């Protein structure tokens, strides 16, 4: 018997998603992205804002009109508006009888956060004044964001490249498991500005053609986007008790570093394969339970191929050749740190839809990408369980499993036996989480 609390969320397993927010080049809201995916429309185009040194200057920018309508906060620029929009959307879905914003904490991920503030001030030759620039710090950013939304629960900020949101999710799950908060807003964001675009260009990671073609024989590099993604997490028991609409249940997540290279993945796929295997094991599932796989696939040949190898390694060739694989990235570009939580949002939408949309911009598959990519027309989701795969610089490999509430409820008795979870207490005697006023 494994440690009883090894489960994501501990005794509060499984964790329910009761709110979702997403801002990307496709606009605000899951529906905006969903529509573009359904009709295979891409929002990648010439960058209108400050360009980096990378050419072609193509990416997925959030529409200016949308940002203009967003609330600003102290020290808040573009990054703050993105985050505030997505967080606001997620809270609007989740809040209601039995849950107020004051009972929610914030776990945030970002690679560079409000870097635009630094970009603007660093353009001059003024001497470095760390104290003056501290207002651009991530901690202040998160505090302002939480205050703007009235979140009084614990706050944490992580910066782990494109898996930053998954680290935030890990802390949020711990905060829930340890009863520090009734619910957690977990989100991530990044903007597409001078440092990001130029940095990826310096690394020669950008697509020279400016086309994001995941898994295609012509895939030639990443096309960046920007955005923010948020989910509201709480225990499924709490969500059901208060009658909240549950958009999916997070059964497990594992983050594994392959320690291979600063920017390239381990081509053997060992790290990602381990993340997948551990995520399945934590959830008490096998490859046969998976209905589809959604992956962050930004057009990088080395990452596309690594994912193929890793999935085959973890699930076996037969399952890997059968489970439908899709991605949202051709529509809006690679969302940087927002990717990890965007994957959760995307997975929950796939569960709702009950079908898997095709990957677009694929003409001829790369022969080294051997998975069952959905091409041409949508396919039915054969099982309400979605595996999400997210990769990040520094050899980061994240795997998560989201299931429909019904599937999760079926699983709970099995997991309760394996992990010695306590039976759900009657509603009247159920202990309340500690007051969120004292932050962790």
């Amino acid at each position, binding site marked *: 018997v494994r*440690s009883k*609390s*090894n489960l994501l969320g*501990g005794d509060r397993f499984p964790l329910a998603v009761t709110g979702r927010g997403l801002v990307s080049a496709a606009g605000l809201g899951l529906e905006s992205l969903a529509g573009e995916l359904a009709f295979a429309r891409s929002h990648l185009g010439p960058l209108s804002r400050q360009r980096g*040194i990378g050419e072609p200057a193509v990416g997925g920018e959030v529409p200016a009109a949308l940002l203009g309508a967003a609330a600003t906060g102290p020290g808040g620029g573009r990054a703050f508006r993105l985050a505030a929009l997505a967080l606001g959307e997620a809270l609007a879905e989740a809040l209601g009888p039995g849950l107020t914003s004051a009972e929610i904490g914030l776990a945030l991920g970002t*690679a*560079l956060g409000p*870097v635009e503030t*630094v970009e603007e001030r*660093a*353009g001059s*030759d003024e001497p*470095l*004044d*760390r*104290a003056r620039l*501290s207002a*651009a*710090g*991530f*901690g*202040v950013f*998160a505090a302002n964001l939480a205050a703007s939304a009235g979140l009084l629960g614990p706050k*944490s*900020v*992580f*910066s*782990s*490249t494109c898996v*930053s949101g998954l*680290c935030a999710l*890990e*802390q949020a799950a*711990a*905060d829930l*498991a*340890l009863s520090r908060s009734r619910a957690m807003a977990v989100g991530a964001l990044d903007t597409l500005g*001078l*440092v990001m675009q*130029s*940095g*990826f260009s*310096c*690394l*020669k990671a950008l697509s020279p053609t400016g086309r994001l073609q995941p898994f295609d024989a012509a895939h030639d590099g990443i096309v960046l986007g920007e955005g923010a993604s948020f989910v509201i997490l709480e225990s499924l028991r709490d969500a059901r008790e208060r009658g909240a609409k549950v958009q999916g249940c997070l059964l497990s997540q594992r*983050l*594994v*570093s*392959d*320690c*291979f290279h*600063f*920017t390239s993945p381990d081509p053997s796929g060992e790290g990602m394969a381990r993340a997948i295997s551990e995520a399945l094991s934590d959830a008490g599932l096998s490859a046969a339970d998976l209905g589809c796989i959604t992956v962050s696939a930004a057009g990088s040949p080395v990452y596309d191929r690594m994912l193929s190898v890793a999935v085959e390694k973890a699930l076996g060739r037969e399952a890997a050749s059968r489970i439908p694989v899709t991605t949202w990235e051709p529509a809006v570009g690679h969302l940087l740190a927002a990717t990890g939580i965007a994957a959760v949002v995307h997975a929950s939408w796939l569960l709702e839809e009950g079908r898997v949309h095709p990957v677009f911009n694929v003409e001829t598959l790369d022969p080294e990408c051997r998975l069952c990519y959905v091409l041409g027309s949508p396919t039915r989701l054969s099982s309400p369980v979605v595996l999400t795969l997210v990769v990040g*610089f*520094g*050899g*980061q490999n994240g795997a998560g499993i989201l299931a429909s509430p019904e599937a999760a409820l079926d699983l709970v008795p099995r997991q309760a036996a394996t992990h010695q979870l306590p039976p759900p207490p009657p509603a009247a005697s159920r202990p309340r989480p500690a007051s969120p006023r*004292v*932050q*962790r």
Partner: protein
Amino acid sequence: MTECIISGAWSGWLEESPGRRRPLGEGAPAAIDPLLEVLCAEDFPGRWNPRRAIPLEIEPLALAAARSLERSGWWEPGSGTGLQGGLVVSCEGGPLAAVIDFVRQLSRGSARAASPTGFLFSLPSTAASVLGLLFGLPDYQATVAQGALSGIRALGHAADLLALGRLERVAVAALSIAEGDQARALPGNAGGAVRLAAALCLERVEPGSDRGAASPGRRVEIEVGAGKLAATAPPESRNESTEGFPRGLPQPFADLAAVPLVRLISWLGAAGGMESADTTITHRDPCLAEWAQIKLRKKASWQQATR
């Protein structure tokens, strides 16, 4: 409180002067060693290219981690065996100087002017990546970037993962950099950055088990808490305590995120000779008007000195 074993710990600091490095800290309390060693990439088991120098910015962190991992018994220098375990790194506020340098490179106008390294070192997570490449820590890896509270938050994150059984062992490392006016508060500083690093190796123990009573390392209970600076603020809310603080470092350095971990390591040294010991280390974030604290309690007897 989370019960765990601190099987290795180390902290130190380094002042960088133009053209040379000036190690400081001589005569400092036992918990603080000067960073005198030159790191040799060949000593490390990971995939770090030994022909490549360990970046100066990260060197104090790498050294702190190396000393801590060695003392924990997780790593033997030169053994070539990769380590198992997670890694949580504290990086306060993001490496502003690196971002600014990179933007200035870009403002010179061409792709040739900017280097890939310049971009990579603008990312707060690069310090963790370097440690991963050096030591091969192939499990969970995260970077906490929460201003002056990053160090305590990193420890809290690691303690949570141990408490919940998400990890069996985890290294926590913190790097703080004082630059500009803050660095100039150090007597004789001519503008060079001052870097403070601390690292701890934590191992999970099942509550109620007797593990740790006879094994190397120090069994402790840890609790991390936080709150707003207000009427309920703890008395030392202005980071004025000098207990366990490196001698020679001026007061403006007390706000650095790595300081609470340095103080924790200092307490470990002092508590070794006591039958029972506990302490509370409180740290504030002057930008956020928030505080965080570590409560520590000695458990069982400690078999191996941990500095």
